[in-house]
């Protein structure tokens, strides 16, 4: 019987052939925890009798969710992580380094074909480079630290074929919102997604990360993108599915027919074509997060906002996904362009995404954000209305002060 990409990766890590629905104990190549999960995980690890993680170099801690610390409570949690990493020789990316998922790929802690467990639900992002990666809670992560293994049920795979070339104004965020629209909030629960198709050739590494990132918004255990056309700074083995692999469902999406998409409050699965929400007044735009805080996203925004100003009354927060992204945006003038337009920059990290600090909206304000979630209270205030869209839509809307179709300005920029 043929295997899907996920079945191939899991078989290698289980040391035997496994197929959908099998329970397996698998070896873990790398694990990751953030300041939102690591303090719990370290506590559980110690209670389990753990001294040193199974492989300290590949036990990665990232301080990103509340970085830099907004109060003494969070500062003390950060201290627990710093002390633990010093004591055990584990790998630490301290406050200011960036968002965990960006770092795992940029700093080469995740590689194609590997199995990675992260104590953060968006750990599915490394599917962008053809790894099997999934999110767990802190105690599961502690168990990985202790044993170098975890148990899991091999998920059945949903195949999603993305075909055609996107129109100007349609970005990878619109593509994944189209998938979320089709499958719904629990359309991939207990399942893995496998993306393939002719549209992959138009997808950069960053674009692939945006798509893989939102697998969990459909309940998915993983979202793996075929590595066809993927370029990394090192050589790697491509893993392709067998032609007779078994899929639980198959979808095909014609990318060339897509319009820009927006998720309306209060669920990422409330997806509409932009036409239905055009003209919605906005107070704040947020460009950042593990979904869309990369250099190419900042470039898109800068190309739209160059020599222009934000609409009166609109605030804009930009959070580069990592220090690397920030440095590159500084060096090539992108930060200047955005700052001149009126945007404020906050340090690399999760920023206002999870409502802890640095940009909490007021009651009844409307926010257009490039993040992946808009649940009630997500940005720290359940009385705010959060819409989700691509970086191009965010920038075009910031200019007008209302939700705006970026197609026209993107066409101008491209020509």
């Amino acid at each position: 019987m043929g295997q899907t990409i996920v079945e191939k990766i899991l078989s290698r890590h289980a040391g035997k052939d496994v197929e959908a629905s099998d329970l397996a104990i698998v070896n873990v190549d790398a694990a990751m925890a953030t300041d939102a999960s690591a303090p719990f995980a370290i506590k559980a690890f110690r209670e389990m009798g753990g001294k040193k993680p199974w492989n300290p170099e590949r036990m990665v801690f990232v301080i990103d969710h509340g970085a830099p610390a907004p109060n003494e409570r969070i500062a003390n949690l950060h201290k627990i992580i710093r002390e633990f990493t010093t004591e055990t020789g584990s790998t630490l990316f301290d406050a200011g380094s960036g968002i965990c998922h960006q770092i795992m790929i940029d700093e080469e802690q995740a590689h194609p074909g590997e199995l990675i467990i992260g104590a953060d639900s968006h750990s599915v992002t490394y599917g962008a480079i053809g790894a099997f990666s999934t999110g767990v809670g802190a105690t599961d992560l502690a168990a990985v630290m202790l044993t170098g293994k975890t148990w899991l049920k091999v998920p059945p795979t949903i195949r999603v074929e993305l075909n055609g070339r996107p129109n100007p104004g349609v970005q990878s965020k619109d593509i994944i919102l189209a998938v979320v629209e089709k499958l719904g909030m629990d359309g991939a629960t207990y399942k893995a997604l496998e993306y393939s198709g002719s549209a992959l050739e138009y997808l950069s590494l960053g674009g692939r990360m945006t798509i893989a990132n939102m697998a969990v918004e459909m309940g998915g255990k993983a979202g793996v993108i075929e590595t066809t056309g993927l370029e990394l700074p090192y050589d790697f083995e491509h893993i392709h599915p067998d032609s007779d692999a078994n899929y639980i469902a198959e979808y095909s999406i014609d990318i060339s027919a897509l319009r820009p998409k927006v998720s309306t409050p209060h669920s990422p699965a409330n997806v509409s074509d932009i036409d239905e929400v055009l003209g919605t007044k906005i107070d704040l735009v947020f460009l950042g997060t593990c979904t869309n805080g990369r250099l190419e996203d900042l470039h898109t925004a800068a190309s739209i906002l160059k020599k222009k100003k934000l609409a009166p009354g609109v605030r804009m927060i930009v959070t580069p996904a990592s220090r690397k992204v920030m440095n590159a945006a500084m060096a090539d003038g992108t930060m200047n362009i955005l700052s001149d337009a009126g945007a404020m920059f906050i340090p690399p990290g999760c920023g206002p995404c999870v409502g802890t600090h640095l940009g909490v909206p007021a009651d009844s304000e409307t926010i257009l954000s490039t993040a992946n979630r808009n649940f009630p209270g997500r940005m720290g205030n359940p009385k705010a209305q959060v819409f989700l869209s691509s970086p191009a839509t965010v920038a075009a809307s910031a200019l007008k002060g209302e939700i705006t179709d970026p197609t026209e300005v993107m066409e101008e920029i491209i020509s």
Partner: protein
Amino acid sequence: MKGKVHVYDVDNIDTDRIIPGKYTKTLDMSVLAEHCLEDLDESFNSKVTKGDILVAGENFGCGSSREQAPVAIKVAGIYAVIAKSFARIFYRNAINVGLPILEIADHSISPGIELDIDLQSGIVKDLASEKVYQSAKMPKVMIDILEAGGLVSYLSKYGDYKL
């Protein structure tokens, strides 16, 4: 185990509503209990007495991987959660922290009644209507973890996973 139910017939109750992200960055469990489900029902915490049962709709616990979500529910005094379906990470986290959860796809449990839950068999009895439900079966490894009282005690006892 008998308990009074709190029914929220709502689908997709996400982890941000179970415990907002702004309260999760703490090791003080009482903070979690205090704010548990407050964006869904402001008075939730004050309504619960120890041993009560939480009942919800589809895809309960979707969203983030925060283990603070099942911990908050447990520390708030809830003995078990029944839902039509659960999000994957929440399901695992709940078992790992020793919060029993039962998936009953098609239930009509009404507010205020008492249920009798037998975790071993997964049988849930509605003490008002005498209606009996059978919850979905869990993999053996999960039953073992739950019986050990959570993953910490399980691994302290066995040192490794046993399938």
